[in-house]
């Protein structure tokens, strides 16, 4: 089975966001970048499918040269091939999806794994968008995945429960936390990844449909108050919630 996995390179969750000089994006100075946490789950699932069914896993990332770091991480975890779709221009989700769809059409995998969401843009859109562009089935926010003859069955998380979904191949799956526990790359894996080549291709040109007018920090909350210490403070807290905040 040919399996593809699309991965993004994003600021570490520890990042304290500062707005950059253009007022439209973050200041990248001093920011540590990592593989998008949901994409790490997607890579793990791709490897598990390969281990069960046999085949090949190809990782794709669209971005500048820095994305090679994240592709190396995927190689170290065990993917067979890595492709960098080179482009430094800012892109909206549509524009990323379109470039990925072009590349995936050529690769022609039976299953493509995405993360549920990039923790930078928080769009949670690119996986399903790519599926629509390719005319493929999709299941998003997946916490359990199984294969039957030419089909997948998946559990997707919804508010207060799960939907049990059946879909035909080729299929796009977007991975949610809970699907698996990603492995740590072994020392051998890390060493091997160093010598594996990363194929570089020009990404299909950007064609954004939405533009960022301004980025800012959310209005700071006024510093709250300590109502008191221990159980003695409870009546006053309840009074404030009832009379001042009016939330109970």
């Amino acid at each position: 089975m040919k399996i593809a996995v699309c991965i993004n390179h994003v600021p570490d969750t520890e990042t304290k966001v500062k707005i950059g000089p253009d007022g439209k994006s973050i200041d990248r100075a001093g920011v540590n970048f990592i593989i998008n946490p949901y994409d790490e789950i997607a890579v793990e699932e791709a490897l598990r499918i390969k281990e069960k069914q046999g085949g090949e896993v190809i990782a794709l990332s669209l971005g500048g040269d820095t994305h090679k770091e994240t592709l190396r991480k995927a190689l170290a975890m065990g993917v067979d091939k890595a492709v960098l779709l080179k482009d430094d221009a800012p892109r909206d989700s549509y524009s990323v999806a379109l470039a990925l769809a072009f590349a995936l059409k050529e690769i022609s995998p039976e299953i493509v794994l995405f993360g549920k969401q990039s923790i930078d843009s928080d769009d949670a859109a690119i996986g399903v968008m790519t599926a629509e562009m390719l005319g493929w089935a999709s299941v998003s926010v997946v916490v359990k995945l199984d294969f039957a003859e030419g089909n997948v069955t998946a559990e997707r998380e919804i508010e207060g429960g799960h939907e049990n979904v059946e879909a035909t191949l080729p299929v796009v799956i977007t991975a949610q936390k809970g699907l698996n526990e990603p492995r740590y790359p072994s020392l051998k894996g890390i060493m091997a990844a160093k010598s594996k080549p990363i194929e570089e291709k020009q990404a299909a040109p950007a064609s954004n449909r939405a533009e960022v007018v301004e980025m800012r920090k959310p209005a700071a909350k006024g510093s709250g108050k300590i109502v008191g210490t221990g159980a003695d403070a409870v009546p006053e807290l309840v009074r404030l919630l009832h009379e001042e905040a009016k939330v109970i």
Partner: protein
Amino acid sequence: MMKILAFAEQRDGQLKKNAFEVVVAAKKIVGQTDGEVVALVVGSGVESIAPALGGYGAMRVVVVDDARLKYYSTTAYANIIAEVAKKESASVVMLAATAMGKDVAPRVAVKLEAGLAVDCIALKVEGGDILATRPVYAGKAQTDIKITTPVKIFSLRPNVFTAGTTSGAQASVEKATIPLTDADFVSAVKSVTQATGKIDVAEADVIVSGGRGLKAPENFNIIEELAAALGAAVGASRAVVDAGWRPHDEQVGQTGKTVSPSLYIAVAISGAIQHLAGMSSSKYIVAINKDKDAPIFQVADYGIVGDAFEVVPALTKEIKKLLGK
């Protein structure tokens, strides 16, 4: 004139609260541009629930009713929404940023050659255009977005736009038939497993969350009791989810759920940056922690410094007293 198609989500033949939120938000926008809101209800046996959308500002409701639509299907729903939007010549499609809305919107965007703004927390009209505000980096920053295509799609974060109460007006209902083939069901839900009686943190108006300071999974009973008294959902920090004390779907934060309830009570949670990212847009935050220097107090509106095992049961008792339970 701006015509907005408001997708009104239903599950099990009941309109969701977010359906009313979307209609009211759409109505506000057209009120500033002299336009019209048409609502869309999709499902099986759902015609009777449609007129109620009139009470929130939809003059007309289009209903697509088909036995095969008992459960959600990404491909079929996307086809229906896009076809109805085209028939109605709607220039804007609005829906809720729920599990369903987030899944279907990207497909509708591709079909309508439309730009998409996901999970919006504010919308305003500027020079005849809609400017959408949406959080990024799990709420550590927010952006104003302008869509540059003629057709535009906005998904709205649940619980942020207020639905208010119904005016009692009934909308006129029109049934529409969209031809569906097997190709529309290449991905389809076959059944739904609902955790009975459980309120999801993403939908809850009140959340009580517990952290590692509770020391053991069985101690979450004090959290559950407080949540029950408040009719609240139970949330958790990643530390307790990773420890296997609580299920994944309760995790709040940057790699869990982003929540915006009216009231968020954080018990024995330190307030790590990844946790704060997911809950700091709550309207009111209460922190209960024995460490007066815990970072959670910096975002809390009200704090109690103390031992959770003393404070929480006392709080549950006091709230039951207030609510006459």
